[in-house]
């Protein structure tokens, strides 16, 4: 098992080189004369007003929230799907009940109108 993951480990260790090489090459080949005007934040030609780190709608949080729930669901359902051939009907019923309960969550979110983009 570890022999397989050795490949992934080497991949993780080596893969930064491939994006790093062109970026470093760019830094070496390209000019480098920074000045304050050049480094200004780009905003359609007008000067930046205010802080960038403005606040955002709670909507984004809700989407991430629903996603978290379905992500966990994936962690449970993928092993079950991988063992699908060895399962009996009771087991499928349990998995289906699991999906059904999560669907309830989606239905609730829908009926509360939180999935509505404003």
């Amino acid at each position, binding site marked *: 098992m570890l022999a397989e993951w050795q490949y992934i480990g080497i991949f993780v260790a080596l893969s930064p080189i491939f994006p790093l090489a062109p970026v470093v090459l760019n830094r070496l080949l390209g000019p480098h004369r920074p000045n304050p005007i050049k480094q200004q*934040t780009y905003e359609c030609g007008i000067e930046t007003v205010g802080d960038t780190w403005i606040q955002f*709608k709670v909507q984004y949080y809700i989407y991430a929230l629903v996603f978290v729930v379905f992500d966990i669901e*994936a962690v449970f359902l993928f092993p079950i799907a991988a*063992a699908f051939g060895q399962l009996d009907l009771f087991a499928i019923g349990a998995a289906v009940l699991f999906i059904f309960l999560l669907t309830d969550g989606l239905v609730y979110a829908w009926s509360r109108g939180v*999935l509505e983009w*404003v």
Partner: protein
Amino acid sequence: MDILDLLKSLLSLSLGDFIRRNFGTGPGTELLIDIGGVVILSTFCLLIVIFLIWLTRKIVARMQDRIGPNRVGGRYGLLQTVADVMKLLSKEVINPAGADWVAFNAAPLLIVMAALLMWAVMPFAPGVIGVNLNIGIFYILAISSASVMIILLAGWGSNNKYALLGAFRAVAQMVSYEVPMILALLVPIILASTMSTEGIIAAQTLPFILFAPVSALIFFISSLAETGRTPFDLLEAESEIVAGFHIEYSGMKFGMFFLAEFLNTLFMSGLVVTLYLGGYRFFGLENWVSADGYPYGRLIGLIAFFAKTFLLYFIYDWVRGTLPRVRVDQILNFNWKFLVPLSLALVFFVAIVDKLIPTGTNVVVRMTIHLLLNILIAAVALELLRRRGRQNRLAMSAGGGSGGVEAVAGHGGGHDDHGHDGPQPIEDVPDVLDTPLGVREPVAVPAH
């Protein structure tokens, strides 16, 4: 060491076996083969992108009645991308004022790393795969979900309102479309009873697209959104938020985002081929082993895989050249109110029906049952959609109606909220402070 042996091994894509034959088997040799495999795979991925960019520009240009690249490198402009790379290399690297140095510089590296790492489990031909993990699909899912985080990193690090806005849209969109993607992926795993990519190909005596066309379609649509391509290219909508999360990047750092996008698109084409179109399978020819023990069939498998993958890639480009960009509310509503319920229902019924088919049933019979089930689900879904659309149209023409009765479940708008002139059940004022630009999402329909 034998030159003929080496050449035959090269031609039959079994260089690893050649090394093992000549240098013996041991942990050192395996390490060497692994490192070589990583380098070859990564280099191949980076080089093919150069070709992909040229290909996309040519295809999209032809669809838009243009010629596309036609100067650099002969009349087909073959060297256009190389020239572009040269140009990017000679650009100045700008670190915008007030940027978060760590996040700003880590993001372009990490996004390419994530795009490369996914290729580790892509089966190119029998035995030609980085590593055949027994949780291959889950691995792909994990890596691709990490790339959402990287985009957020880039948007935050840039210290730019457009970048942050683009990153937020990107995250909302990618996070949303990951749900139907996860659920659609469950179907081939259920059918094959394994998560390994090679195992799924081995299970496809008939391609899974015949078993699960709806799952394939859902996966295709959500992969469009995951890679941020038209019609879901809101995250870099040039006409609205300038360029999205990578607006402040210049030179090769920008190039890295570009590279990752193309790499991901090709990967998604390859994944669709692997999951639904039989991968490298080509009528059994891919397993052909010559009399002297060289598996030349691998070359056939490789050609079959890339033929299918580029066909899929052409479809991605076709979509890109044809469809306009959709609005952000349409994207999210389409996902949460159509794709997710549909894929939930699909997994629900596929799991039950597949279990009810007795084991040992002829594969064609099994395929037919699944196909009928898929057609039934698709028909019901389309009928519901049609009714919903009609209600919305009626509500719109009545003027200021409140959207009519819901056809599927719950309440709230349909796929199109124009009808909601009256008070909504839950009205919400965006949770924002006064900012000069305002962070409400623009809802203009793009010009192109």
